[in-house]
């Protein structure tokens, strides 16, 4: 539809903004997490919370604090979802049933934002603000905290497994980084037409004599943090395709920037905190390459529009908004799956077969293109460790990263990390297609039906949250299965990463020698990209072949 230069110019705007923010935001975040001083409002908060923000925690204590906080989060959100009709600002929404409430609580606490409910039918304003939006902030801050703990582990020498203070990292990430950015973004979105009020829904007589409901709600404040924190849970069912969540092409561009800005700035934070900015550039190069690959292939598929239905219509416009068109929809789709966000501005189920396949593949990369806030950075550092390990095997030297030896226990933790997500995706998909209750949810027979289930399990197991929404996933079976997948895939890797952080922090940093593999050169960048793609490829080629690949070829 659109000329090539328009496609490139839209992409160029996003890249320019990200390039301009990378250094200042990344450096600012490094300062936030390194500063010894607390803001006055933070000190007042810590007194109310009665926690010590200055204790330098061992990794195991850090993990316990994180898990305790997350348990409290699941319980409080579950209670809010169940009891919303008894609380103020419910705007007539009933309490959620137990399976939906469990799924929703786990989904938002794990930064997934898979939604087995429809926003305009099931979530009142108080649940949206005080429940869901709060988790949009803090689940993002938890992801960043884990990444920072790992970076500290790499930066410290002989520190007895101490990786920082979870409470202080959580509060600072929320208050000093996400809150100011979200506030400014929310006001900009309102200027563009995103609503922000506390009205209940009311009837209106339309121009042609029908009736429609006027919607209301604190949407802009939620929209901003939902993208910025790579959460993705829409205020309304249509998510960022809804004209009141994303009214214009420029708000759409802003939302794409919001979902990429923190993940792409964190490599700088890493570089500054380990005292070698070149390391940050290398991580950025890997993330950027993978994202560029995803954007290029998805855009090609959607603009070219192969397949029966797009050919019949003349373009791949089913499930897309006219104001965005195929190119801006593809850019959003690649970015939302690359960042583990899961917000959508087009319906992914109706993407072309290769385009839909690319969104699944991009999620399968494991949140590293550029990944969720925090989870992208720690996921990529894990892949970097595998890359130095592989390189070490090739030349017969003890592998090391930033002066830390990768020994048997380190590589064990890393290997377990790599196994969790694929195991959940493959076993979960097999279970769902093997059981009648799972097959009942499939809306279209054949390879596309397998893609629906595969997409759901891949989305949940990567804390993404987007869907091939034709799948009837609001059954108790999928609520529970996907809830378990989201929970395991969030917290098992976090525990492994913090264990790794603790081991690195305990090690003495050894100076680089002539035999050390430099981890900031293009050769190493290429190696990490190759390791990422090969690991995903070897794991998922069979199932991808049966779903999206068959669809693309038929």
């Amino acid at each position, binding site marked *: 539809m659109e000329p090539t230069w328009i496609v490139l110019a839209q992409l160029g705007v996003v890249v320019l903004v990200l390039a301009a923010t990378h250094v200042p935001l990344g450096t600012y975040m490094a300062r936030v997490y390194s500063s010894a001083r607390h803001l006055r409002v933070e000190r007042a908060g810590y007194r109310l919370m009665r926690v010590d923000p200055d204790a330098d925690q061992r990794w195991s204590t850090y993990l316990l604090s994180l898990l305790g906080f997350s348990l409290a989060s699941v319980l409080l959100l579950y209670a809010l979802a169940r009891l919303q009709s008894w609380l103020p600002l419910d705007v007539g929404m009933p309490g959620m049933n137990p399976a939906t409430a469990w799924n929703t609580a786990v989904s938002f606490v794990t930064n997934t934002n898979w939604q087995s409910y429809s926003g305009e039918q099931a979530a009142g304003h108080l649940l949206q603000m005080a429940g869901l939006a709060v988790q949009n902030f803090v689940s993002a801050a938890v992801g960043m905290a884990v990444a920072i703990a790992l970076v500290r582990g790499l930066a410290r020498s002989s520190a007895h497994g101490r990786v920082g203070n979870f409470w202080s990292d959580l509060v600072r990430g929320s208050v000093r980084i996400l809150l100011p950015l979200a506030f400014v973004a929310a006001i900009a979105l309102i200027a563009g037409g995103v609503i922000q009020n506390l009205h209940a829904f009311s009837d209106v007589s339309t121009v042609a004599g029908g009736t429609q409901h006027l919607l209301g709600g604190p949407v802009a404040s939620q929209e901003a943090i939902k993208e910025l924190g790579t959460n993705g849970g829409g205020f309304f069912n249509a998510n960022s395709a809804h004209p009141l969540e994303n009214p214009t092409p420029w708000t759409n561009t802003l939302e794409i920037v919001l979902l990429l800005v923190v993940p792409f700035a964190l490599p700088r934070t890493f570089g500054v905190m380990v005292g070698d900015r070149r390391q940050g550039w290398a991580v950025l190069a890997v993330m950027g390459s993978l994202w560029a690959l995803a954007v290029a292939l998805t855009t090609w598929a959607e603009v070219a529009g192969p397949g*029966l*239905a797009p050919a019949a219509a*003349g373009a791949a416009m089913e499930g897309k908004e006219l104001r965005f068109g195929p190119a801006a929809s593809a850019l959003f789709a690649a970015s939302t799956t690359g960042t583990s966000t899961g917000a959508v501005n087009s*319906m992914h189920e109706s993407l072309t077969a290769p385009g839909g396949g690319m969104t699944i593949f991009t999620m399968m990369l494991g949140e590293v293109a550029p990944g969720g806030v925090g989870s992208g950075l720690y996921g990529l550092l894990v892949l970097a460790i595998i890359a130095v390990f592989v390189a070490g095997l090739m030349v017969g030297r003890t592998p090391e990263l930033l002066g830390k030896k990768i020994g048997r226990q380190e590589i064990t933790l890393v290997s377990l990390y790599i196994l969790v997500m694929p195991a959940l995706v493959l076993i979960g998909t097999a279970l769902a297609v093997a059981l009648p209750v799972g097959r009942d949810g499939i*809306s279209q027979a054949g390879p596309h039906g397998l893609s629906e289930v595969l997409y759901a399990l891949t989305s949940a197991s990567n804390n993404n949250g987007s869907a091939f929404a034709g799948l009837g996933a609001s059954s108790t079976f999928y609520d529970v299965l996907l809830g378990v997948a989201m929970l395991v895939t969030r917290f098992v890797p976090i525990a492994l990463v913090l264990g790794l952080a603790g081991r690195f922090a305990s090690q003495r940093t050894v100076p680089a020698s002539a035999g050390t593999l430099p981890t900031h050169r293009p050769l190493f960048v290429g190696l990490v990209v190759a390791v990422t793609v090969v690991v995903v490829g070897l794991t998922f080629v069979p199932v991808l072949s049966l779903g999206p690949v068959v669809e693309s070829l038929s």
Partner: protein
Amino acid sequence: MTAPTSGSTALAFARQSWAGLRVLLVLTVLLGLAYPLAVTGVGQALFRWQADGSLVTAAGGRTTDRSRAVGSALVGQQFDAARWFHGRPSAAGDGYDTLASGGSNLGPLSPELVTEIDQRRAAVAAEDGVAPSAVPPDAVTASASGLDPDISPAYARLQVARVARENGMSVAAVQRLVDEHTDGRDLGILGEPRVDVLALNLALRTMAP
């Protein structure tokens, strides 16, 4: 250093969960109440009309009074009758139902979708008296939200003759209305050129004899 026993780990976890709850409650007041209410306050002060839903009156003017509104300038409505410009097909409920936003979620190879597209193409071609091949993609595909307010300039042009006839207006006058309601890409590069159907039909209603 001795390894902690499982009993002491359980106790430590319970204490951390209690601390977690206290932290969460304080953060909920800040991020779940103060933040959205502050955004509401500032948004309402600076951009009252947008914050309240970009409501329009029957005369096409802006309003924040819900009782005077005929809809939101940003949200599409169903226009079936031949005298109106039609919007895109909608999968939201029975069409443009704001309580059921969403797409068809039919896959790219769905036979059902291909049939629907063919039927829509034939219907548009018949109603507007054009060749089926002249019907643009947005006229035969359901949007993502089901509330898409826009159509392509091509689909608007295609409807001009019929709308002019049905309203007893000249083709030139209706074409001028379409041109006035056609927006280019944002900043010249972002998104797609588009025609807002609700605004166009409101203007049409005030003009039509």
